[in-house]
């Protein structure tokens, strides 16, 4: 029996690198900007010979409805990918394990313990014995293979099977340099996630955050970057300058953040590939709380003017600055809507910190947060429909989301002291940091926008101020 052909072929290059501290001095690593050539191997949809050969069950296509309030995690099986050579076997197993971990952490899937597997997948070209997988109640099955090409590149293929319908749902193959194997695993995870939920995934993405060490009175803070699952941490600054609130550009190649150098603390721009750093604008005073516009052309930030903080935008090409607010208040934590038309921010112009929304050019702002307590660090969902925030109420700091008109508030995580939400690229997950106070320090957590599945994100030390990148490909 012939298998359906794999639908897409992705070429993932890995020529550029992250400039990092010299003491780290690791070999070249892949970076977010990858040369990605996506070309269709087949013109049409890849339901080939297999689907026709198999008895198709009507309306049985596997699909996880994530629009429901309460999602029952979908049982899936991810047996080790087949490795062709001895070294490939390790890589193949690692790829499967990362896929398994991603799917499990999403809270939407329940990977089945491999000890329960009946069939051992040893030939990626054979159709799985579906009854064996049905017997352990796997609904989705992911098989794959990792092969070293003659030119030294790694070829990774996978197929996602609907076990009960007995058909392939999707299949892709990828070519890349061998050190990109981790990224391949994330890309495959995203493909599975998207095929089964109908929503884009978020696994092939990164987090920029602040690594913290040392006693609290003299905390050392370094810019750090890692994969969304906590792997591959790299430090972008040495810790000799206090750095805060890093944010990704949409290209994922640059970070804007605040740093204490000589003189006033300022907003900087750092190219993570070249390590080149520059100040953003030449403002008379402290600039802070930066964030990119969705098109990456502008940085919006606060400028401290005496006792007040106002919002300014700077065009990165022309260097022209635009004042967006002019109040005797603290206006800060601005975040653009994904279409770039509006800005949400926090202001204490009404007495306490609340969330306001205004046009991207400034002008009148409308308060949207009206429940008890104060609201800060608003951030617009990539989906456009909600704004996540930190809420202070009765001495507690909660992370929540609300619609962009302020209705439908939902608290996702409560306690002392949660702060600084950032959305996954698909808007499905919120990451934030939690600091228990006292001598200890903060950690990163993720929680689903339904408020379920709160998980700690592994980091080498204390970590704060996370910002999630867009999807890398």
């Amino acid at each position, binding site marked *: 029996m012939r298998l359906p052909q794999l639908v897409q072929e992705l070429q993932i290059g890995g020529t550029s690198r992250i400039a990092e501290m010299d003491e780290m001095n690791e070999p070249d690593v892949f970076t977010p900007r990858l040369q990605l050539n996506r070309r269709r191997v087949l013109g049409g949809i890849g339901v080939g010979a297999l689907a026709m050969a198999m008895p198709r069950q009507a309306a049985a296509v596997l699909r996880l409805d994530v629009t429901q309030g309460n999602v029952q995690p979908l049982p899936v099986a991810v047996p080790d990918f087949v490795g062709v050579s001895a070294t490939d076997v390790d890589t193949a197993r690692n790829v499967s394990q990362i896929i398994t971990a991603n799917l499990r952490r999403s809270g939407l899937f329940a990977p089945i313990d491999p000890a329960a597997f009946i069939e051992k997948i040893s030939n990626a070209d054979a159709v799985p014995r579906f009854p064996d997988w049905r017997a352990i109640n796997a609904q989705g099955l992911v098989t794959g293979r990792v092969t070293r090409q003659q030119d030294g590149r790694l070829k990774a293929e996978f197929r996602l099977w609907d076990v009960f319908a007995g058909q392939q749902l999707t299949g892709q193959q990828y070519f890349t340099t061998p050190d990109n194997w981790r990224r391949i695993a994330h890309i495959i995870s995203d493909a599975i996630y998207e095929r089964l939920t109908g929503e884009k995934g978020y696994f092939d993405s990164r987090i920029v955050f602040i690594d913290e060490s040392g*006693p*609290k*009175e*003299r*905390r050392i*803070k370094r810019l750090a970057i890692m994969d969304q699952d906590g792997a591959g941490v790299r430090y972008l600054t040495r810790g000799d300058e*206090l750095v*805060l*609130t890093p944010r990704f550009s949409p290209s994922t190649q640059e970070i804007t953040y*605040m740093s204490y150098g000589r003189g*006033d*603390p300022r907003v900087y721009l750092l190219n993570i590939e070249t390590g080149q750093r520059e100040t953003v604008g030449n403002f008379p005073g*402290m600039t*802070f*709380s930066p964030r990119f516009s969705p098109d990456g052309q502008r940085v919006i930030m*606060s400028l*401290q003017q*005496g*006792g*007040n*903080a106002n919002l300014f935008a700077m065009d990165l090409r022309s260097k022209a600055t635009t004042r967006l607010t002019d109040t005797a208040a*603290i206006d*800060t*934590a601005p975040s653009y809507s994904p279409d770039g038309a509006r800005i949400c921010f*926090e202001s*204490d112009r009404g007495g306490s*910190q609340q969330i306001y929304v205004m046009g991207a050019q400034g002008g009148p702002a409308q308060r949207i947060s009206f429940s008890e307590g104060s609201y*800060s*660090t608003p951030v617009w969902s990539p989906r456009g429909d909600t704004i996540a925030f*930190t809420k*202070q109420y009765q*001495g507690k*700091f909660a992370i929540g989301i609300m619609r962009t008109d302020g209705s439908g508030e939902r608290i996702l995580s409560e306690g*002392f*002291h949660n*702060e*600084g939400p950032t959305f996954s690229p698909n808007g499905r997950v919120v990451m934030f940091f939690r*600091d228990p*106070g*006292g*001598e200890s320090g903060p950690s990163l957590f993720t929680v689903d926008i339904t408020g379920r599945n709160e998980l700690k994100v592994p980091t080498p030390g204390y970590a*704060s*101020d996370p910002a999630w990148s867009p999807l890398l490909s």
Partner: protein
Amino acid sequence: MTTVIRFARGSTIAAILMAALGLAACASKPEGPAASASVAGAAARGSAQDFVVNVGDRVFFETDSSEITAQGRETLDKQAQWLTNYGQHAFTVEGHADERGTREYNLALGARRAQAVRDYLASRGIAPTRMRTISFGKERPVAVCNDISCWSQNRRAVTVLNASS
């Protein structure tokens, strides 16, 4: 430089408390409390140490407020007098917040507190050209614990004499 106080932490706290609580009483006496007298004795008049120990380098704020308190005014009046006497010193006012606020807001709140001190000292005749302000938000607490005893020490503005002056 975030601090010029280079004593052990315990004595730093003692100095702070003295500055916060003891100044009204101290003002009418030639010497401070016995505990700090020996330290004070070691400080050369007009030196940074003299300023920290005998004047008090910091004022404290209520939660979420940048208003100078009555106690703060007394400290700042003494600071202004000292800074007038020793006009060679340029200085930086560092504004700080406690940890019970979000990072961005606390940066602005610290700046507001530093500005309030700057404005007050200017109103007492200190030349603005001698003064610079900076905010550290909640990044540099002096006291670390999870209750009000620490938070109230962290909500502060510290007048730091420049090393070169």
